[in-house]
């Protein structure tokens, strides 16, 4: 999964615990920081997709979160230690406390990580469109993107975009894999096509 989650909390138990729970469900990079001073925008790879932060905000942390929230619309979730109120300096999108169940954490994460609309996997199982099937047939018969574009009177860019969708929907990336897929799904005729040479 692309991007990363930032956990800003002075307690290792809280930060590492949350990270372990989230890792059970999502293969995403998680960075745990004890203080915002450890945060280095340059060093870190991948965009921040969600922040989980202590409710007790120092001015420094507050500044950082404020920047993320207002400029980049990144969801921020508070971790509440006990019975205290949510700090109203910053509008948190949600909050966790010690009693929040694992299932709840997972639900909140998938909501704020926007899983279901951003991930490519969710396209799996959707049937290929007629046009995508056309492209697939030509890919399977060994044509290059340029040749396919010429044959279907579309741009190379459009061919590439179709191919991307085909891969997302089928879960298959290589040309030889797509060829087998086309045969298994009877999109191309094995009799008319010399498979051995195409692989």
């Amino acid at each position, binding site marked *: 999964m692309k991007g990363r989650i930032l956990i800003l909390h002075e307690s290792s138990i809280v930060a590492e615990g949350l990270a372990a729970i989230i890792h059970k469900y999502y293969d995403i*990079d998680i960075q745990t920081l004890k203080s915002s001073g450890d945060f280095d925008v340059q060093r870190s790879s991948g965009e921040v997709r969600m922040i989980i932060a202590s409710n007790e905000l120092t001015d420094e942390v507050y500044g950082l979160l404020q920047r993320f929230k207002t400029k980049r619309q990144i969801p921020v979730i508070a971790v509440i230690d006990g019975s205290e109120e949510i700090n109203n300096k910053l509008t948190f999108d949600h909050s966790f406390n010690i009693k929040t169940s694992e299932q709840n954490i997972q639900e909140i994460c998938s909501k704020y990580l926007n899983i279901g609309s951003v991930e490519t996997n969710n396209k799996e199982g959707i049937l290929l469109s007629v046009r995508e099937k056309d492209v697939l047939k030509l890919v399977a018969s060994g044509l290059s993107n340029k040749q396919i574009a010429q044959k279907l009177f579309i741009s190379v860019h459009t061919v590439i975009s179709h191919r991307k969708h085909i891969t997302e929907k*089928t*879960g*298959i*990336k*290589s040309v*030889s*894999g797509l060829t*087998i*897929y086309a*045969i*298994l*799904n009877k999109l191309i005729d*094995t009799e008319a096509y010399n*498979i*051995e040479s195409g*692989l």
Partner: protein
Amino acid sequence: MPNDKMISIIRSNYELLPVLNRFGLKLGFKDKTVKEICEENYINPDFFLAIINTYNNKKYFPEKELSSFSPLEIVKYLKATHIYYLEYLLPRIDDLLKELIRQNESKSQDLKMIEMFYRNYKQELVSHIREEEEMVFPYVIDLVQNKSKISSHPGIHAFEKEHSNVEIKLNDLKNLILKYVNPDYDQNTCNEFITNLFRFEKDIMDHSRIEDKILIPMVLSMEKSV
């Protein structure tokens, strides 16, 4: 960790047994610790643990210990991995696939297609392994022993990109079988086939991680210093 009992490592993940074998270790550890076993067998315990950790944790990177490893011990380990693939795991997968096709009463073409894809994949993989054995490892060994660079060699960089292609095809193979094959096969043979395929995938990903995260950074810094 060095003072953990060796047996506890296996108990926590039995898939590590072949990994241990690559160090020349077999069962019969009694209550000895990792450190004791390593010392008895002249293995660098830090290196041993780094290999175990990369296997267990995809994100593990032994930055601190890296400088204490010898590229030669890494190459030795990687070679042992190749032997495991070529002499055991791939032939095992071959046999299971043959068995699967033999048992398939409806003689469906699907499995034959899969077999063709698999054969093609295997060929590519074997030539990738050959290349490492013939081009990359001798280069690394030479770099360590003679502290000099073979001028005609393109350097370690050239071989990084090869991995991804092999990984893509393995993933395609898995998807083709899991998603698109006709369910008229023998279930037990097929399950065993798929289990071995997953095992192979996990192992080969780990193998690539060791190359990309341990061997290549070491060789790159050696290249700089010669």
